[in-house]
């Protein structure tokens, strides 16, 4: 189910260049992701991690280069149809506590793109929505106004909304940023569970190494709009590499990682 692509390549980015105003966000990035793969993208702020996700779902504008997602070339015109098959979870955002929407309605938004214009949600759509709310463990809050939830709960709702879309590819953009430790580890467990059961192709962006799920098979290190290195997590995430990636002395990296290990223990 996860991909339905003949050659087994879910995402193929070739020499992508993206620029916002004067800044160049990506300076010629090539990345190939197989179906069902879980890729972690790690790097300091401003490295171009989020930009990679935006060119995969067609929200970012390519200056040059070529992006193929699910065997379809991403360009003008097919952005909307592509986004229906690519789920995107962003960082926790502040939601007005008075917002007149409840959790089930927010999760249903995930199906709106699939439904298309002029179609109302049917019983089956509400069934999928309730199933996904159950999966992320939010059934007891399903009728709450969305603005009344905590950051961790809102992020679970975002993931449920994304899954209600029945996507082929899952893009997670710092889903654990600004959450407390417990909420972080719960979200990571959830991401792992989803990947293990559905084998969705997943791109997981984070600047925080402690927040890379165990499911991660391959890590891409990014810096200054370029892919700096990639490989298996245990090979890449060494103190030397990280010290160069984040421009920090080795002892500082070691100290941070020890603290992280203590926190996770």
């Amino acid at each position, binding site marked *: 189910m996860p991909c339905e692509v003949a050659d087994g390549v879910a995402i193929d980015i070739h020499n992508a260049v993206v620029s916002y105003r004067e800044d160049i966000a990506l300076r010629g990035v090539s990345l190939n992701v197989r179906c069902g793969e879980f890729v972690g993208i790690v790097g300091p702020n401003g490295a171009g991690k989020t930009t990679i996700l935006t060119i995969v779902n067609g929200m970012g504008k390519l200056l040059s280069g070529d992006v193929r997602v699910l065997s379809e070339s991403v360009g003008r015109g097919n952005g*909307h149809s592509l986004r229906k098959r690519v789920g995107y979870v962003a960082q926790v955002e502040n939601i007005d506590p008075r*917002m007149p*929407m*409840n959790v089930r309605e927010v999760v249903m*938004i995930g199906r709106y793109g699939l439904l298309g214009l002029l179609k109302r949600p049917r019983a089956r759509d*509400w069934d999928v929505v309730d199933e996904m709310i159950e999966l992320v463990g939010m059934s007891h*809050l399903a009728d709450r106004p969305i603005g009344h939830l905590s950051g961790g709960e809102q992020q679970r709702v975002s993931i449920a909304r994304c899954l209600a879309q029945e996507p082929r590819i899952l893009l997670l953009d710092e889903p654990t940023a600004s959450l407390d430790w417990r909420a972080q580890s719960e979200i990571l467990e959830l991401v792992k569970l989803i990947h293990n059961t559905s084998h969705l192709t997943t791109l997981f962006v984070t600047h925080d190494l402690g927040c890379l799920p165990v499911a991660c098979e391959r890590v891409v290190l990014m810096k200054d709009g370029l892919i700096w290195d990639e490989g298996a997590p245990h090979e890449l995430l060494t103190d030397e590499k990280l010290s160069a990636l984040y421009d920090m002395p080795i002892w500082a990296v070691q100290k941070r990682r020890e603290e992280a290990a203590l926190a996770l223990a």
Partner: protein
Amino acid sequence: MISGSSMSSLSGEALTDNRGWLPDKLIPRNCAIRLILTILLILLAAASIWGIFQIPYTAIQNAVFSAFLAGIACSTIGVFVVLLHMPFIGVCMSHAAFAGALLGLWLGFNPLIVAFGFCLLAAAIVGPLADRGQLNPDTSLGVIFSLMLGLAFLFMGLMPGTKSGALDLLWGNILTNRLSDVILLAVVTSVVVGVVVVFYKEIQATVFNRQMAAAVGIASTVILYGVLFLTGATITASLQSVGGLLIFSLILNPAAAAYQLTYSMKRMFILSAVFGVLSGWMGLLFSYLLDIPSGATIVITSSLIFLVALIFSPKRKVKGWRQEVAPDNV
């Protein structure tokens, strides 16, 4: 929607079930009272329409219909303005319409067409600023707003002869509305309500979170500019009745009042329209009885409705509301 209502009644949290038009807390679902109330309301509406036609003065008939239509159109637009957190856009556009109408009067064109053009011009400047999001648009909006007001008074100063037409556009005079004004309002109101009904789910997603709506494949930018276009049309059509300086209150106040009272977006649209019509009719009544400009009375009535809604808002105490709904979860 069918499975939705059955699900929530199963889970026993009927209070937050928001798929009906009456709160389930007050009147249970599938109840005879509900049916009777609906029929009574329809009868009441029919009777009042019949009653309006019994009034011998067409001016008052036109005013009653104009207040009804402007109330619905403005308050529906208001829901977007409140939920998209862009009240200043409405202010800018209503002042642009006012300036445009005065330019039209001065040069001898149809003031409403020029007003609509100015509205769209303001939307074209302001829309991209709001769309980009990361940039705080307040400063640029302030510049455009004051420029429009300046232009309006410039055109008014240049206008020769009597300025009563200009003053009508400033604070509105619903009692001078002709049949053509009513027809224009009826067309605009039908389009606004029709768009909300037909594109409800796209609109709901867009006002909740534009980036998210775009990420699931909804053309949220098209929806946003569509809303701005409808805002311009509504302001133009209501200009004669409520006036360029005051119209923004009729847009904002009913929606802001409804926002205080409900956690359901559908109910917010309906409540807002009810408050809008109520403001229009009560304002009209006061205007008629006390012989003061209708725009002023309509705006003051809508402000009072907002004040009352604020006082009785369950949202002021979020904690208390939580306990009331689901004491076992807190």
